């Protein structure tokens, strides 16, 4: 391992034409449930600054792969490297504190807390431990809290949630809840954001706003993995796309190249459909 990291260091210091170590690199990642191979030997490199689309038919293993990357499920085999470090055994909270944020396919908000509080919780890992001071009513800490609230409001504003600070998260509409999840994840100040179907339940205007948001975040240097059924959203925004089918990676590369591959068409349309599309 020491040798490998030294080699990576050599590459970094070498010619700039050699690609840098990707932010996230999966090597032979598998996740089996008994006989079911939900994810099966996936190799994936997510370069720093990319917006990486992850697509595939239902049950292809996209969400399971996100769970493995974010530490919620252990990999049965394979290695995950994040910023060059092997992070397979890291618990989810440690990965989150190291900058891997995520949203969930089925929305998981703190429903009984207000919208603002949800975002404040997202700042947990970069908030210094102020518990004792707060109990003793130290006035200096009030300013820090004020700064956090201001920042949380800005994040809410960013995802288009205005004037709902004090509503309970559980009272929001479905598409709004998805946007709140993104704001909460951004509160971590992540390096890598994993989005699991953020556009689900959004109408066309909301989906367009989401696309703008993702592209703006990406321009600011945030690396993202986007699991999405909305093919158009993926095609419009992503710099790279990987396609999963039955847990296996069947294609990856630039969006336009990937969708034209016969294996991908076949996975989506079935064999006959693929034959029809080819002729």
């Amino acid at each position: 391992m020491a040798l490998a990291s030294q080699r990576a260091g050599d590459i970094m210091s070498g010619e700039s034409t050699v690609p840098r170590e990707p932010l996230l690199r999966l090597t032979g990642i598998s996740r089996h449930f008994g006989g079911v191979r939900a994810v099966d030997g996936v190799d994936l490199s997510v370069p720093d600054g990319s917006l990486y689309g992850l697509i595939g038919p239902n049950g292809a293993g996209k969400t399971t792969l996100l769970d493995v990357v974010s530490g919620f499920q252990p990999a049965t085999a394979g290695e995950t490297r994040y910023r060059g470090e092997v992070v397979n055994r890291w618990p989810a909270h440690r990965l989150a504190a190291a900058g891997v944020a995520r949203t969930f396919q089925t929305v998981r908000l703190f429903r009984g807390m207000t919208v603002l509080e949800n975002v404040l919780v997202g700042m947990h890992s970069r908030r210094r431990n102020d518990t004792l001071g707060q109990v003793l009513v130290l006035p200096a800490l009030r300013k820090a809290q004020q700064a956090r609230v201001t920042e949380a409001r800005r994040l809410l504003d960013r995802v288009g949630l205005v004037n709902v600070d004090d509503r309970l998260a559980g009272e929001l509409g479905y598409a709004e809840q998805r946007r709140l999840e993104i704001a909460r994840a951004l509160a971590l100040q992540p390096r890598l954001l994993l989005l699991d179907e953020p556009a689900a339940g959004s109408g066309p205007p909301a989906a367009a706003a989401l696309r703008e948001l993702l592209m703006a975040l990406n321009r600011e240097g945030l690396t993202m993995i986007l699991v999405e059924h909305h093919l158009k959203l993926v095609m419009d925004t992503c710099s790279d796309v990987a396609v999963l089918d039955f847990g296996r990676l069947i294609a990856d590369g630039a969006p336009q190249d990937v969708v034209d591959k016969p294996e991908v068409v076949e996975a989506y349309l079935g064999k006959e459909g693929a034959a029809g599309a080819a002729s």
Partner: protein
Amino acid sequence: MDFFIQLFTDPLGFYSAHQLLISQVGINALLTLSMYITLNCGMLTLANVGFMAVGAYISVLLGLNTSVPFPAAMLIGGLAATLLAVPIGLPVLRLSGIFLAIATIGFGQVVVGVILNVPATGEGQGLINIEASPATAINYIFGGLVVVAFVLWRLRGTRLGQAWAAIREDEVAAEAHGINVARYRLIAFVLGAFVAGCAGGLDAHLNFIIAPSEYQFTRVVGVLVFAVAGGFTNVVGPIIGATVLTSLPEILRFARDYRDLINGVVLILVILFLPRGIAGGRRPGGRGRLMALWRWPRSGPATS
């Protein structure tokens, strides 16, 4: 009615007439707060009365056999419960939901079993606590209650308090936002044990006898009922729940024979109409509706 008339017209007379009841309200409020700490973090643990017994016996044994003064003996009892909570909590808190509840009930039974079999505890006979002093106990009880309630109230917006609330609302999402769920759950469990252990020491200072029969399962259920009735989404709820339900038998003295029945009815009414407790506040979604319970079950998928 006499109860309230005296409370408002002659508070001093009320205080001296009902000093024991007021002390018991304080003890029960402390125990309910100790359960609030864990409930507020999304865990149903029923080990509180076990920790209470540990605190009670240790503080009484210290008082009888050494020259340690009472407040120190009580704090040592609380610390003993705290230390015991760590090795208990590490394996047990891997469980959740009903399994966690059952495992912690088991702990309470083990404590009672140990007391019944260790000669130093007086076994089934209990211990006579000649050091007890009900008149001073009430001051310690309410001093302790004020401190505990203040600290818990202040904790709400802190990093710790917010982490607990997040875990209560959604453990997975909390973990995904950098919260070390296992660690924060252990902190809640241990802190709850400390408060329960201190409450045990105070309770023992109030009564001249302590016996294992006081630390049975029914007592934990009683504390849980205080918490549910009062509401456990804020610090006030457990105190209100303990106050109302502890003094209800006194208020309803004329109906003494039916007091368990009335307690039950009060609890059902609270759960139906105030699902988050008397002081629970709002919650997402609608209120529990009484009539909905009697609606005829319809076939086919439920639509709402």
